[in-house]
């Protein structure tokens, strides 16, 4: 089922929670609504679910307008952050509840579908238990089974993994992604965890203060973020930013940050705009910086702190007023206070407008 949001808006009194979001979800696609808490992503999901009525705008399921329809008329399944399993019912009754309230499903068909859904998420051994007797991960699976039992056309997941511990969250990430592909159901999930969004979704919609900041594949959002907010929000550790003076040269662009002695030139392709503002934000990801011997590289600094994480070392370099995060090799043997040079990967620099914060290069 193809889903489309057009200029979707929701305000609570004076507060504008969702401000004119346009989104188009292909049939069978798995998308994430990503944003900091309070950005309006859950409100958007609840409007798709039919719990909230939009203040204005349209929601289309397969071309049909649904924003005035009751949740039960929309053919959706939903998994809640708290799972919202009915505490007084067994697992079997929980999974069966959406079928019980649906017309035209007899007892035999119901138990067949309960069996099918519970096998799909491997809770078929737990059917006679009550939610309180289940672990967090099991409750999560039961919630998934309940959402899928009535064979909805759209699956909605609200922060589905945030109540699980770190290791289990990692496992469930993969499982939900696989399940979504196996069932082939159009799915929307809400998360504040950028890594969760990048690893699970086909496309990610980044929402900030009710606005849609970006909507693209994880790769594009990471490699070519369309604005500074997305660049900063996606990626861990965060992208480094510095204010630079920009100079358009022949076939290349020059960047200068006088305080740090930075003066470099990067070749630009034919896509570069002819005129660039003279002031901009230069962004570079920690893995695109390289620590080099002092007096070499593009600028100088000293090591502020080193955080080993096993696979790599995260090094903070103080350079003038600025501090840069750098991902270094695990074998990196610098010490705090050492003078070092920093090299910037010319191919992987991002340039954003100083005021509008939109991408320039």
């Amino acid at each position, binding site marked *: 089922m193809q889903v489309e949001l057009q200029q979707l808006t929701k305000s609570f009194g004076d507060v504008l929670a969702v401000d004119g979001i346009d989104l188009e979800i292909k049939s069978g696609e798995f998308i994430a609504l990503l944003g900091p808490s309070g950005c309006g992503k859950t409100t958007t999901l*609840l409007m798709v*679910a*039919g*719990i909230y009525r939009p203040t204005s705008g349209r929601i289309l399921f397969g071309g049909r307008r649904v924003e005035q329809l*009751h*949740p*039960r008329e929309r053919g*959706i*399944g*939903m998994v*809640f*952050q*708290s799972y*919202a*399993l*009915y*505490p*007084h019912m067994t697992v079997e009754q929980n999974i069966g*509840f*959406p079928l019980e*309230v*649906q017309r035209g499903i007899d007892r035999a068909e119901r138990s067949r579908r309960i069996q099918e859904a519970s096998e799909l998420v491997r809770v078929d051994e737990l059917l006679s238990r009550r*939610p*309180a007797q289940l672990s967090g991960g099991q409750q999560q699976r039961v919630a998934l089974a*309940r959402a899928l039992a*009535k064979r909805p056309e759209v699956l*909605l997941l609200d922060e589905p993994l945030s109540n699980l511990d770190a290791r289990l969250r990692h496992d469930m990430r993969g499982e939900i992604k696989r399940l979504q592909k196996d069932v082939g159901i159009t799915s929307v999930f809400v998360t504040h965890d950028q890594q969760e969004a990048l690893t699970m979704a086909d496309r990610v919609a980044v929402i900030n203060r009710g606005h849609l900041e970006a909507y693209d594949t994880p790769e594009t959002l990471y490699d070519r973020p369309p604005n500074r907010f997305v660049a900063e929000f996606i990626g861990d550790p965060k992208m480094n930013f510095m204010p630079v003076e920009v100079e358009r040269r022949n076939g290349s662009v020059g960047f200068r940050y006088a305080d740090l002695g930075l003066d470099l030139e990067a070749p630009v392709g034919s896509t570069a705009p002819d005129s660039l503002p003279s002031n901009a934000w230069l962004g570079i990801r920690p893995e695109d910086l390289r620590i080099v011997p002092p007096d070499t590289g593009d600028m100088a600094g000293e090591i502020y702190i080193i955080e080993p994480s096993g696979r790599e070392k995260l090094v903070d370099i103080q350079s003038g007023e600025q501090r840069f995060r750098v991902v270094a090799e695990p074998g990196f043997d610098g010490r705090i206070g050492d003078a070092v040079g920093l090299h910037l990967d010319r191919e992987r620099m991002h340039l954003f407008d100083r005021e509008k914060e939109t991408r320039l290069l």
Partner: protein
Amino acid sequence: MTVREPMPSGGRFSVLGLAPYLVLGLVSLPLIILFGWLLYSSFFSRMEGLTPIGGFTLDNWRFLWNPNSVQQLAGRSIWVLTFNTFIFAISVALLVVLISSMAGYALSRLAFPGRRTFLSGVLILHSFPSVTLLIATFIVLRSIGLFDQLLGVILVKAAFEIPFGVWIMKGFFDTVPWELEMAALVDGAGRVRTWWRVMMPLVKPGILALGLLSFVTGWNEFLLPFIFMPSGSQETLSTLVRSILGEGRFVDYGLLTAVGLYYVAPILVLFVLAQDQLMRIYGGGVKG
């Protein structure tokens, strides 16, 4: 850390341990004596102070098997009065629970204009002494033809109890997470089914407690049946006790104690059986 050792007899430790019981026992002594006296005197023909006079007798309990020997029963069986009382109490309880749980749900979950005003209005109603409304109630009952009928008294009593019940039930509904209700809506249930299949089972402790409490207050109610059913055609036990106490110069205390005991016995049994539920009414909450 406490290590339990055998208590030395007459030692300090045991005296300290007993102290709370002694204090509590002393404080509740008047009550215990009261109930003891009630029970005791119902089996003797006369009491002088705390001392029974005359031998053991079942004569005071004769109302159970020989209604004609008790003038105040006026030929009716005690069982009919018990039945009336039961019908009165159970109807009040059912009405209060039904209306309170629907109103409480609406007040807890639905946004409608005047909700806050309504809530505080309900609270004011609850603090209204029912005595002050007797005349108005009388006029209303008369005009709808329910005066001197059990049904009328049931409605009046339920109406007086509902404000309290609405607040209690609203409190219980407030503790049920919103997400559960959203889940039911998404799962395809309508409002009514969500209320009945998901919300009501989760506020069961509240329903039980409120139902029991309403039953007990209904069972104990004296004023309303006394005033609004003057002919006594559908008399309840509370007014029977009153008429034993109030007719003639000589009060048959033996009979009074026996009837009184008979009257409170079901409530005592109910309290013992249901004290867990009753105590939850002020605890509130859903067990996960």
